[in-house]
């Protein structure tokens, strides 16, 4: 008897499109195993399904003494260039605007237990990451997520990443309006959209409801939306200021205003137009200059705006641009408890400190939002179950992840706070200090990232421990400072926008390497991350905690009344700031203090030999290569169906694979061909058949006719012979497509 699979069990629970996409990905995995799909193409496919590489996945690891080969059981099989098939990887799970339901929380917990290491990691983009995942497990994980409405699609790779939004949207006291339904609509509209498939790099979008706070961070994004209300013809009209070209990375760029006010009905077409301009003109070969920020800087905002304006005029109308707006007025979250004041309720020990830092008064009277301060963005699977229970009791499905790697529970009745605090404490989630100096943001760094140079998590853990121990005695002036740490210059830990930012690098001392952190001071988190800090010098990793103590003590004692950290740094001046850091830059000889030659949380003698090739830039693979791979996957499904005796499916899949191959070819000339078979065939005929571009020197138009005939004359009845024949014809058609593309565009695939 055949055993049941997750695919069988969840078939009726998954949205059909997601289910089909996952099947296609599974087919691509099989093709890769058989050596029929190029590793670079598969790598980009995998990344666009959220399956990311992890440190040591090239099969090598320095154990502190020597670099060892990791003999994974699948031998030389790879899932990307220098990426071994069996090597543990990371799965990034997109949570648009960070919004989670309790049911989703439980499924995430199950997945962490069954496929990962019982840990769920909240990222700085409101995603959830599972680490140490085997690629073979990813289709089932995706199915279980799809069954509760979550996708990993385009969580990595050169595509539109998770659309983030302020976690207080809708409950914020200062917002223009709730940006939640707009961020959701944008995420849904752009997910898998044809116009976001041909980028040279990733593309990040954020929404914010107000200008003054940092929650949305719109100014560090490729595209940022800031909510505005404008009076037009006597009517209050909703819209957004749209920013473009922001970004951190090695060289941070402040976003520029593309449009001061775009009415709500225009935000999707404008996004689409920006995506098209980026896809057409953005850098493709040099990944270090391929983000939108470089294109905007190169063209200038006026020229970029002109191009977007022109592109907008050419967009074919799409009713989805505005259909979601019908539901916006009705978008509401429902509290599950009646609003009630806290008055007179007995407060448990520790409550007041927690209340001061972790509780936010909502715009709705009697309700608050509670932030759960996660250490390093981590919580266990067990805690996630327990948190789902707590949410059901106090908040319902009003749970969101934050870009500071925390979780918020919204719509908490104030009177419930003491009980909620008690319950959170019981499961280890009641730490005070959310959003304060002890709540340190960190990227994965050398723990799991291939690009990590120093242990950002190790340092963050150490600083959190030290600062946490003396939190109560810290001067008030420093409590709200932000510390953010990246393991390398790529800024995933957002070090540029922290008061005290740190990013990993290494320095040589004699013949040895020493982990260091570059110190970046005076970045501005508030005002949607309105300014970036300045690098003032690199100090050994082991000296960072004492340097941080020095900086915060000096700030606390030297600041003038009301002086912000940024203003204090500016007043000190670069020379004085450098002098403050200089004493901590010394490295003792190894013989005197070998601890300097190891990183935080890692006892190995430090080295940089494990740094690999990062996948955050994705593989720059041509649009045709990506699309033809879909045709290959569907053709593979046709073969499987034939083996299963399901001839109707086999025949349909074979036809579909030809359509996809034709579409891949057409889209090298005409992006807007769409998905309708009639349109694809019409464009294919006009552009490649009538012009004879598709013709083989000997067979002439024979292979093209396989598609044209099948399209014009679908069979009334399908038997094994017919299915078998069409599968063979589809194979020939796909091969001819490769040849034609190489001939016409001069691109060699595989």
């Amino acid at each position: 008897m055949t055993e049941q699979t997750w695919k069988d069990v969840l078939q009726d629970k998954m949205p059909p499109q997601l289910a089909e996409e996952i099947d296609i990905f599974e087919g691509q995995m099989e093709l890769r195993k058989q050596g029929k799909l190029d590793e670079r193409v598969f790598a980009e496919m995998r990344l666009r399904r959220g399956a990311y590489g992890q440190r040591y996945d090239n099969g090598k690891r320095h154990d502190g003494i020597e670099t060892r080969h990791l003999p994974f059981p699948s031998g030389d099989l790879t899932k990307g260039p220098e990426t071994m098939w069996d090597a543990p990887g990371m799965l990034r799970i997109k949570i648009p605007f960070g919004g989670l339901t309790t049911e989703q929380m439980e499924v995430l917990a199950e997945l962490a237990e069954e496929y990962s290491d019982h840990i769920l990691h909240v990222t700085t983009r409101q995603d959830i990451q599972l680490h140490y995942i085997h690629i073979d497990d990813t289709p089932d994980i995706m199915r279980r997520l799809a069954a509760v409405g979550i996708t990993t699609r385009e969580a990595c790779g050169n595509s539109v990443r998770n659309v983030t939004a302020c976690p207080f949207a809708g409950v914020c006291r200062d917002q223009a309006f709730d940006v939640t339904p707009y961020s959701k609509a944008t995420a849904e509209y752009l997910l898998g959209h044809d116009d976001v498939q041909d980028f040279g790099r990733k593309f990040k979008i954020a929404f914010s409801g107000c200008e003054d706070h940092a929650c949305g961070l719109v100014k560090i994004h490729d595209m940022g939306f800031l909510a505005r209300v404008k009076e037009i013809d006597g009517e209050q009209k909703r819209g957004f200021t749209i920013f473009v070209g922001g970004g951190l990375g090695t060289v941070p760029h402040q976003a520029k205003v593309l449009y001061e006010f775009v009415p709500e009905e225009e935000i999707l077409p404008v996004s689409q137009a920006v995506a098209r301009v980026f896809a057409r003109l953005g850098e493709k070969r040099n990944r270090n200059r391929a983000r939108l920020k470089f294109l905007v800087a190169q063209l200038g905002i006026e020229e970029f705006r002109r191009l977007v304006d022109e592109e907008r005029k050419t967009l074919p109308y799409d009713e989805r641009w505005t259909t979601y707006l019908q539901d916006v007025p009705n978008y509401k979250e429902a509290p599950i408890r009646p609003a009630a004041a806290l008055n007179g309720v007995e407060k448990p020990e520790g409550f007041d400190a927690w209340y001061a830092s972790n509780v936010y008064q909502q715009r709705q009277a009697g309700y608050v939002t509670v932030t759960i301060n996660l250490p390093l963005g981590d919580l266990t699977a067990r805690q996630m179950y327990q948190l789902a229970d707590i949410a059901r009791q106090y908040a319902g499905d009003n749970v969101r992840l934050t870009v500071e790697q925390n979780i918020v529970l919204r719509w908490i009745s104030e009177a419930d706070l003491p009980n909620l605090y008690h319950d959170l404490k019981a499961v280890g989630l009641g730490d005070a200090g959310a959003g304060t100096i002890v709540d340190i943001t960190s990227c994965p760094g050398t723990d799991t990232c291939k690009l990590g140079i120093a242990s950002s998590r190790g340092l963050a853990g150490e600083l959190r421990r030290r600062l946490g121990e003396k939190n109560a005695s810290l001067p008030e002036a420093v409590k709200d400072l932000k510390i953010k740490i990246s393991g390398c210059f790529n800024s995933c830990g957002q070090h540029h926008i922290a008061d005290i930012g740190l990013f990993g690098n290494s320095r040589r001392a004699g013949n040895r390497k020493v982990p260091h952190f570059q110190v970046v001071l005076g970045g501005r988190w508030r005002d949607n991350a309105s300014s970036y800090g300045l690098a003032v010098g690199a100090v050994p990793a082991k000296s960072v905690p004492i340097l941080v103590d020095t900086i915060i003590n000096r700030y606390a004692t030297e600041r003038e009344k009301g002086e912000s950290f940024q203003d204090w740094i500016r007043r000190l001046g670069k020379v004085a700031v450098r002098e403050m850091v200089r004493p901590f830059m010394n490295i003792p000889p190894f013989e005197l203090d070998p601890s300097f030659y190891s990183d935080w949380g890692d006892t190995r003698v430090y080295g940089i030999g494990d740094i690999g090739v990062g996948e955050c830039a994705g593989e720059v693979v041509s649009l045709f290569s990506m699309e033809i791979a879909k045709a290959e996957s569907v053709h593979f499904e046709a073969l499987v169906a034939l083996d299963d005796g399901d001839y109707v499916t086999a025949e349909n899949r074979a036809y579909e694979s030809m359509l996809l191959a034709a579409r891949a070819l057409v889209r090298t000339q005409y992006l807007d061909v769409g998905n309708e078979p009639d349109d694809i065939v019409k464009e294919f005929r006009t552009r490649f058949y009538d012009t004879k571009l598709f013709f083989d020197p000997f067979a002439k138009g024979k292979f093209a006719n396989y598609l044209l005939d099948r399209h014009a004359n679908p069979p009334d009845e399908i038997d094994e012979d017919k299915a078998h024949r069409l599968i063979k014809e589809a194979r020939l058609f796909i091969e001819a497509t490769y040849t034609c593309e190489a001939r016409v565009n001069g691109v060699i695939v595989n």
Partner: protein
Amino acid sequence: MSLIPKRLSVKFFTKDKAGVELESLIGVFQSWIQQQAVEGLLIDVADYSHVFAGPGVLLIGDEGDYSLDVSGGRAGVQYTRKRQQGHSLEGLITTCLRLARQAGAKLEEDLALTFDYSTVQITFFDRLKTPNTPEVVAQLQKVLASFFTEQLGISEAQIDNVTEGPRYAPAFLVTLPQALEATDLQNTGTEAIQQA
């Protein structure tokens, strides 16, 4: 439906009342990688000492992970088989018991910890093959009883269902009349995977 789960964890609890300094495990597990001190393809060390009652510090492997686990508020040495489960549930249980027992012995040498080998927690992580239903839990309990009696020759093993609630993975606490010795777990003839 096969009862071989996606992941099977076996945990022996510490006897040490003072608790365990989890940070010290990082260096120990790094040295295990250097020395190839335990079976399997050893990849990396993951430190989760900062989370409450979590997986502690893990030695990540390809076939399975070793850890000093503090989940449930009780520290213990744990082995979790995650790949190459083999052909029989009995073989899988033997492998996990044997490797957890070996890791415990090694930790006793390296960190002066002590473990209680007469009590073992066995957890089945697979919502498809071993869901937490009364039927499956009863089946698993039966398999465990049979395993300890027939494979290990321990007829007085007490097997308690300690699954905490309907949504949690089935977990059993096995209490034995005497400590399991490494020799009890060899040559049972049931292990499907012989490590190099």
